[in-house]
Each structure stands twice: as structure tokens, then as C-alpha cells.
């Protein structure tokens, strides 16, 4: 079994890129990678993480199309879709292919376009991850998050000011990240002046959906040394999935994160989590064991979401997990251009919008 490394990462700023489609966003990160590596080795596999391609660009077969676009002829291609956890699923597949020796070098690219259409049209698509009854009765994921928020406030005796702490921290982190979508600070007033999406959940409780692309090279030890002077090892990936239940623990996060951190024998301090809503940030922090139940947002650990998270770096759907992986790689390689922490290990928790699927990944600098 080969050891698995990340040998390069490239990302676009998360933004409303009206001048770029899926192709152009992907190609920007493809060029970015070629410009930063020591030696360019043609990948034998391309995995594209994308959730809404058919909804926004009437485009299917993105694996094949983006391989052709970047002149990667004759290679193995996939498009991976598992809701907004598509990024984590793509990483899991890339890791497994290299670990098993089936692939030597995999290009994993997340790409998403969500800003071309009015929000009611996109909300329709985001709601397709719900069960059949919920979808056809007109419910959207924000309302389910709002119900979780209500349950949380009741159980732990919190009010909405507790949740304001999350976006305040995320916006403060994003100010230093050149790839972030919302690079401005906010305070409690900004939070309370933002519109109510589904009571008590506000706009500033929600990840900021926008366009973006990120690409990462996942490779074996031999090629990693050729491509980079400072490759970072992927120690493990653990995945878990459960049907959504209206409860305040996310079993998929709990299982996958404890499995992967057991391999490390400790818990990394630098970590990117999927904060689709402030309440989901709290539930991920608590279910993973990074924080205590009922008080995670009172004392948010320092190394969490240095990028600004989905709230302020932005939420490019299925590409999100690839951003997270690129950010942790850059943190450990010492090249992240935003807020930094030093550490020998890092992790990501990539989940769907409501946390029912989770992909936990641990990276180490050796």
C-alpha cells in the first residue's frame, strides 16, 4: 500500500464570477497548479467534484469534458456528486485510488457555479437533498437548520446571540484570506440587522453560496517528491453516512472523525469544518469532540476555519471540500496567504448541508 501525498493546490477567489463558467474556473486552477509545481506530471486520473452542473450550465459528463478541456487525453475520469459533501467524496476516492496503487497521480478538482440564477431557482436545487415528502411539500434546508437551532437553544438554554459568535469569528478570519468571498468584519449589530431567512435563522447564520474552483494533486511518494519539495501526507480518510434525524448529534461526523484521528493518535488543531449554518458549525464541533456539547460557540477553538469558513470564505457547493483540503495543505506547507497557525497536522470535515454524510481527512507534515 502506497503512502498518499498532496503535492500541490490551487484555488480561485470565491466570488460571483459572471465572466467565468465551469470550464474557465477549472482551467484557472489547472493553470495555477502547473505554474506552481516543480515538475508537471500528467495525472492518470481526473476526479471532478460538482453538485449543480446540470442545474446551472445544462452540463453532464464533467469528468470527460474537463479532462478534454485541459488536454488530459486518455485518462480515467469521474464526476462525483454527493450533495455538498461531493468534495469530501472526491477526496475519499482519490485517496483510495492512490493508496491501493490503482492510480499514481490524481487531479482532484472541485468546481461550482451558483450565482447565475435567482436564489429561488437555486434553493429549489439545494432542496433536492431532502427526502421526497419534504421536497415535494416545499421545505428547504434552511428551515430544517432553523428547527435544529430551536432545539439547540431550548436544550442548552441559549439565545440567538450565541450563534452570532460564529459569523463574527468567520468574518474576522476571512479578512486576511485573498481567496475569501466576504472579506469584511462584522459585529453583533450586523448580525441582528441581517434578514431572517427562516426564524430564528438569519442571513448571517448561513454559508455564503458563490462560485469557485479548487484543484489538488493527490499522488504517491515517488511522484510527490518530483512535483513538490514539501509534499504533505494524507494520513487517512474516514467516511460515514446516516439518514438525517432531528437530533443534536451528527453521528456521521462523530464516527468519521474519531476513526481518522485514532490513526493519528491525537486531534489536529488546524481544521476546516463545513459550517453551512452557524448551528451546523456548533453540531460539527460538538459531534467531532473538538468542543463540549452545548458550549462550542462560547469558546470557538483558535485553529478552526482560518479561511473564514463557508460563512465568509464562501460556500461553493461541491467544491467546498477541495477548498478545505487545499487550505489545510497550504497551512502545513506554510504557504497559506491568509491567517496561519503552525502545526504538524491538520484535518478537514467535509459534510453535506445538514451533516448527514461526513468525510474526515487527516494530513501530516513529515
Amino acid at each position, binding site marked *: 500500500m502506497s503512502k498518499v501525498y498532496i503535492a500541490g493546490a490551487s484555488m480561485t477567489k470565491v466570488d460571483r464570477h459572471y465572466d467565468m463558467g465551469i470550464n474557465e474556473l477549472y482551467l484557472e486552477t489547472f493553470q495555477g497548479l502547473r505554474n506552481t509545481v516543480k515538475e508537471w506530471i500528467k495525472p492518470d486520473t481526473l476526479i471532478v467534484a460538482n453538485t449543480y452542473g446540470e442545474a446551472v450550465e445544462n452540463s453532464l459528463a464533467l469528468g470527460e469534458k474537463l479532462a478534454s478541456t485541459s488536454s488530459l487525453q486518455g485518462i480515467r475520469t469521474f464526476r462525483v456528486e454527493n450533495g455538498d459533501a461531493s468534495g469530501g467524496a472526491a477526496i475519499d476516492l482519490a485517496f483510495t485510488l492512490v493508496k491501493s496503487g490503482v492510480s499514481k497521480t490524481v487531479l482532484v478538482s472541485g468546481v461550482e457555479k451558483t450565482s447565475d440564477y435567482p436564489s429561488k431557482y437555486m434553493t429549489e436545487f439545494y432542496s433536492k437533498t431532502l427526502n421526497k*415528502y419534504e421536497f415535494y411539500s*416545499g*421545505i428547504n434546508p434552511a428551515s430544517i437548520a*432553523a*428547527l435544529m437551532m430551536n*432545539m439547540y437553544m431550548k436544550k442548552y438554554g441559549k439565545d440567538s446571540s450565541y450563534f452570532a459568535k460564529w459569523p463574527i469569528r468567520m468574518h474576522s478570519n476571512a479578512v486576511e484570506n485573498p481567496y475569501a468571498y466576504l472579506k469584511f468584519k462584522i459585529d453583533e449589530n450586523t448580525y441582528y440587522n441581517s434578514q*431572517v431567512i427562516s426564524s430564528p435563522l438569519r442571513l448571517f447564520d448561513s454559508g455564503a453560496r458563490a462560485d469557485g474552483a479548487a484543484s489538488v494533486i493527490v499522488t504517491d511518494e515517488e511522484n510527490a517528491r518530483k512535483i513538490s519539495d514539501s509534499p504533505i501526507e494524507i494520513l487517512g480518510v474516514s467516511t460515514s453516512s446516516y439518514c438525517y434525524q432531528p437530533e443534536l448529534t451528527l453521528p456521521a461526523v462523530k464516527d468519521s472523525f474519531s476513526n481518522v484521528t485514532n490513526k493519528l493518535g491525537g486531534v489536529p488543531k488546524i481544521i476546516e469544518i463545513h459550517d453551512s449554518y452557524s448551528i451546523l458549525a456548533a453540531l460539527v464541533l460538538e459531534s467531532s469532540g473538538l468542543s463540549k456539547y452545548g458550549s462550542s460557540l462560547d469558546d470557538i477553538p483558535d485553529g478552526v476555519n482560518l479561511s473564514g469558513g463557508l460563512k465568509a470564505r464562501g460556500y461553493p457547493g461541491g467544491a467546498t471540500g477541495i477548498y478545505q483540503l487545499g487550505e489545510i495543505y497550504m497551512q502545513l506547507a506554510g504557504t497559506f496567504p491568509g491567517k496561519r497557525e503552525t502545526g504538524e497536522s491538520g484535518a478537514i470535515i467535509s459534510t453535506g448541508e445538514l451533516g448527514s454524510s461526513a468525510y474526515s481527512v487527516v494530513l501530516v507534515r513529515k
Partner: protein
Amino acid sequence: MRLTPPILWRSKGSFYQLVASKCEECGKFTFPVQSVCMHCGSSKVIQEKLSGRGKVVSFTVNYQHRTGFEKEMPQIIGLIELEEGITITAPIVEVSPDELKEGTEVTACLRRARADSTNGLIQYIFKFRPV
């Protein structure tokens, strides 16, 4: 096109009648109805029509609309615990948010969901209203 007759026809148990599957091994309900128990994996399940009576555990007033649901805004979405012990997320109608409280008793009722403007098909679904 969003709606087709076959989709609605084969979903009639879940959309119109509140039918769930009840597991003969573990006794738990799965909704929407399906042939395998979601909790224990047993295929010894029977279909059972739920009473439709329950109480509101929690609710939210939603302002973020989806295509075709514009006229329903704002929309009340409740977490409802049914008599049979199963909890579902569903729209609550015929009540204003100020009148609704946790613990309010509700009952299922069939209501219009939305229409497909391309083929004229109208979709109905059960929602809940206070008793």
C-alpha cells in the same frame, strides 16, 4: 417540467394518505413508506396509515421561497411528533405564527402544493393544521 403523473401516482401513499412502513422486527416507523426498515434493515415491514394527529415540537417561519411556492410565503414549517411516536418535518397551515405554540395539537389535511406551469399538472400533499 417539474411534475409528471407517474411520480405523483407512485408517491400517493406518502403524499396523500400519510402511509408509513412499520417494522415487525423493531417496531419502528419509517416515513416516507419503503419496503426495508430504515432503523434495523429488516424487510418484515407492513404499510400502516398514520392517524395524522400529533403535536408541534418546534416550528420556524420561512421567508426563503422556492420556485412555485411563492404564494405560500411566509411558510410555517413544523417539527411534528405524531401519535405513533414518529417525528416528521412538514408545513403547518391555517394558523398565524403568533397563534402557534410548541405543544399545539395538529391534524393532517390535504392541501395544494404547487402547479407545473409547463403541463398544468397540480400537485397536492398533506400538511398540518391546528385541531
